[in-house]
């Protein structure tokens, strides 16, 4: 499971970085989203991966670490707000600058 998980994170991050480098606002937003998915999964994995380990102490011999899940929730909420903001900003940029390039002008 660890290898599959790590591979998923790697693919997500690589795709995200590639999209960031496209330097057009829509791919950039997609890239940022993919990277934040990867980061959230990474944070989640820091509580160690396991099956059948409840988060509630006392239900079984082992219990999952609830803190990374709390961290991920916070990170998701913040990431959500940031994505919403960057989408609105991109639309504003498109309206004001008449180009979807992140530098606000077409490359020569």
């Amino acid at each position, binding site marked *: 499971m660890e290898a599959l998980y790590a591979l998923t994170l790697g693919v997500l991050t690589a795709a995200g970085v590639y999209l*960031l480098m496209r330097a057009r606002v829509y791919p950039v937003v997609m890239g*940022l989203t993919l990277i934040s998915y990867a980061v959230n999964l990474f944070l989640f994995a*820091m509580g160690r991966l396991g099956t059948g380990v409840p988060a509630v102490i006392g239900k079984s011999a082992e219990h999952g670490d609830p803190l*990374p899940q709390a961290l991920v929730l*916070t990170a998701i909420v913040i990431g959500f707000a*940031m994505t919403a*903001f960057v989408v609105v900003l991109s639309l504003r940029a498109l309206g004001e600058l008449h180009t979807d390039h992140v530098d606000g002008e077409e490359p020569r």
Partner: protein
Amino acid sequence: MNHGLILPILLPMLAGSLLLVRSYLSLRVKRVLSLAVTWALLPISIWLLLQADSGELQLYALGNWQAPFGIVLMLDRLSALMLVTTAVLAGFAMLYAVRGDDERGANFHALFQFQLLGINGAFLTGDLFNLFVFFEILLIASYSLLVYGGGAQRIKTGVHYVVLNLVASSLFLIGIGILYGLLGTLNLADLALKIAEADAERQPLLAAAGFLLLIVFGLKAAILPLYFWLPSAYAAATAPVAALFAIMTKVGLYAIVRVFTLLFGNQAGGLAHLVDDLLWPVAMLTLVAGVIGALAVRRFERLIGYLVIVSVGTLLAGIALGTADSLSGALFYLIHSSWICAALFLLADLVARQRGELGGRLRTGPRLANPLLLGAMFFIAAVSVAGLPPFSGFLGKVMLLRAAGTGQQALELWPVVLIGGLGMLVALSRAGSVLFWRTADEAVAKPELDSVRTLAAIGLLACSPLLVVAAQPVYAYTQATAQQLLDVGAYLQLVRGGGA
């Protein structure tokens, strides 16, 4: 438990929320409320500073969950000092803003308060994840404030600023994730304790996390390879916003000081002084790049942006040296440079308002309506920021140069700082002579000079001579701060002993 600790966070949060949900209130009421809250932070911060000066570390456990399990706020000399610096800066920036800059869009005051909430929170928190949260709060407020007022230039730099910071936030989370995965805690003092005990097997990963954090803080602080967003962003922002942003680079530097003296400081075993060797050349190069940029600019506001970068380089040199003397010199310089750079941004706006369409462009323009007043202010600011006597920049630099000792590091620091100072002086003289002397005979039809705006700028400028007059107690305080920072044991005791 001292509930005063949470006031600098609670007050702007409540005021900001109120301003947001009551956004139909008249602008007059909003201005009064916002001004009152911003200025109320000053006595509170000074009160906290006086408490912190006893040398005792104070913890505030939110919800009374004790460290390291609950989230804590921590007040030491450094955070109190940063709070006071912010409060003074924000007070004058707000005073400047209420004369019309807050009318250019909606909810300026709410955003300003949220920005203060984020900044104050970042200075007070004793928990790494909480630092991330406060960073995000101050960032999202700063995104909106940066593009406040609209216009193509602001949107353009806004996109860069937002995307860069979102990537940095991801890196921050990865760094936090690594630290938590390896050590099982995010409380700063507890992290320091666990890092010191980490075995050799985990050290490389911990070092990786440390460097990730350095990248994140470096972007906020605008150190060498990560500063390219700063000059255009600060130049595009509305003047009071740019003035407030002068403290934002210092938030990054504060985080560097906090993390790399506490977590990777004296007591970190194999990871002690993780980044010091790297910071030194980076500091020198940042300083040089800032000066070169300052010499090349064509706009007054961008010139100030590069001066901010020079100050970051100078400060970083003090941090990299890592002795008590150099840190205390750096802290003195930090107070000075925040206030003076902010004053310069306000002054640049005052000057631009008298030049009509030309604004801050460094070209021959119309005669200023008040050349003597603005010129005198510019002269004082320039002398102070370039680090010439008799103003505070000179004292800060002298402290730093003296702290470099007589060895190899002094050989590198002295020429860079002194020739850099000369470069700044050349750039400032060029700007000043174009703005004030090489002008046409005619002034623009309706030159503006608002007395309150001028007062705000003068108020911030006056802090420079005041810092010189009060240099002895301020220096004693920064010296004590540096010693407290380097004596990591007291912080570790907070967790071991359960804290107050």
